[in-house]
């Protein structure tokens, strides 16, 4: 559990800011900017997702629903009303995600464990199927292209920096939440729900709150993604997208707050590198996942931390 260690945090923020912030200044190509943006947004999505699983113990296989709602709010607004409505679309996406997550949350937080997971999957697919089929309005399988915000946001570099700032701010907010009393409560809910209600706290209410918060930030990631790719597609809502964010989180380590972000970065970079060489990416990532789940369940970051503590205690033993 990570409650203390705020100077560790500071280093993470600094690295993030410096590395990502300097990319446009070092003459990076638009491919590198896109890669970095994808890492930032998937990273935010993964951190938001992990608030549900790693922190609260709720495995949702349907966060793609909110990610897609964010993307489609922006996409539909721009398609039908024009580029000036980008920010409005972004706001609408977050509001829609909040409303949907409250409605769905009330329905599904009645059950727990694997049942909960299946239900999140089901709702995600319902929304996907509607969007896929309603192609007269949403473009269906063709998606929507030409999503270009107007004004200063139409400049790729400006958009990139705004994305960076929004992502950092969002992850910072989630970090604060995770270390607040509410965060402690959520961890207790994960570890022992009956004890929590025994001391008079409402388990359900805590879970609903974090579900809504996680979903709203997922939508934010999706909205910003629409502006990076300048297009959206129903795949954003499909369950395999939910699966990808879960893979990223596990790869980085669900027990660490920043683990999912690192996992997202590693996943995306490796996907591009491996994808260029072979068509068997699913096999490779499947095997990597099996290795992680079976042998390194703490993920990259978690295992590094464990290794570090072992080394430290070895050194301490040696000295003492």
């Amino acid at each position, binding site marked *: 559990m990570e409650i203390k260690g705020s100077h560790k945090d500071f280093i993470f923020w600094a690295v993030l800011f410096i590395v990502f912030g300097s990319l446009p200044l070092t003459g990076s190509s638009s491919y590198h900017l896109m890669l970095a943006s994808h890492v930032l947004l998937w990273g935010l999505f993964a951190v938001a997702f992990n608030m549900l699983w790693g922190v609260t113990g709720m495995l949702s296989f349907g966060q793609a629903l909110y990610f897609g709602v964010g993307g489609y709010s922006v996409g539909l607004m721009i398609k039908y009303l024009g580029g000036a409505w980008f920010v409005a679309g972004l706001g609408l996406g977050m509001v829609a995600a909040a409303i949907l997550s409250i409605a769905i949350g009330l329905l599904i937080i009645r059950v*727990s464990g694997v049942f909960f997971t299946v239900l999140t999957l089901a709702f995600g697919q319902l929304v996907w199927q509607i969007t896929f089929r309603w192609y007269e309005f949403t473009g269906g399988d063709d998606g929507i292209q030409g999503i270009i915000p107007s004004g200063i946001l139409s400049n790729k570099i400006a958009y990139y920096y705004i994305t960076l700032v929004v992502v950092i701010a969002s992850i910072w907010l989630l970090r604060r939440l995770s270390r607040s009393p509410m965060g402690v409560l959520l961890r207790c809910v994960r570890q022992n729900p009956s004890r929590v209600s025994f001391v008079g706290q409402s388990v359900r209410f805590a879970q609903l709150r974090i579900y809504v918060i996680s979903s709203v930030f997922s939508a934010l990631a999706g909205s910003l993604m629409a502006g990076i790719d300048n297009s959206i597609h129903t795949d954003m809502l499909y369950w*395999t997208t939910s699966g990808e964010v879960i893979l990223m989180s596990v790869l980085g380590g669900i027990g660490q707050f920043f683990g999912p972000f690192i996992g997202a970065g590693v996943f995306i970079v490796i996907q591009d590198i491996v994808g260029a060489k072979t068509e068997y990416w699913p096999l490779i990532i499947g095997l990597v996942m099996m290795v992680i*789940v079976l042998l390194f369940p703490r993920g990259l970051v978690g295992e590094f931390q464990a290794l570090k503590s072992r080394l430290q205690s070895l050194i301490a033993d040696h000295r003492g």
Partner: protein
Amino acid sequence: MVSGLTLATLLFLVASGLTLIFGVGNVFNFAHGSFYMLGAYFAYQTIAACRTNFWIAVLAAGLGAGIIGMLAEFLFLRRIYGRSEEGGFQILLTYSFILVIDDLVKIIWGTEYKTIMRPEGLKGSVELLGLTLPTYNLAIIGIGFLLVVVAWFTLSRTRPGRIARATALDREIMMAMGINVPLTMTLVFGTATMLGGFAGALAAPLRSVTPGAGIEVIIDSLIVVVIGGMGNFWGAWFGALILGEVIAFAVVLVPEWASVISYVVMVLTLIFKPEGLFAPRSVRKV
């Protein structure tokens, strides 16, 4: 009305293994659809390599899927029993099985569509009460019904069935009672994947054998299991029946939205009876 039966049976066949492993074994096998796909490919390969008749190929398909399932359980799934977050890691592990199996199938059999013909004697149709009923469809409807009867009987009336159910509920007590729990889990998992393999082989003559089938089929079987109640074979059968009929009617009445209807039914079930329409126990939390 009758037209929904074939779909209902196909849905039930593929959901049966999932409801067994999930409801009885308490393991969520996300890769269940992949074993369905393996069954179809094994059946194809058996026919292609040995020119056997269809039913032997179906048996081979089930056995093959069962063996692979048992290997997967023994080598991999077993290592995460008893871990904290077991449910979550199980889902993840079986999700990675989907990725691995799908690509292995592509490597071994390639991407072209394979085909299995209907068995001799079941290629035509019969006229009954003014309706045309393809004989192969009738055969698998019959097999589906037989399966639900056999499964229900085995689970509730025979000793192995009761042991399987009890082991799922409390492994430690069963171990204390001298039951070989690891073996039981492996056998239950293998039976479930075997059912998946049978389903894939039986459905194959009605479709083409294509890669990616694992991902296509898992969502539909999940819906059936959710509607019918996890672990309940009769529930799964009725759930599939309801779903099949609803879709059949939707096709006629609201053709524009028939593709969404199965999700709507599932959502309605969840609102009014989240443990499933026929579930024996409540899964509501504290």
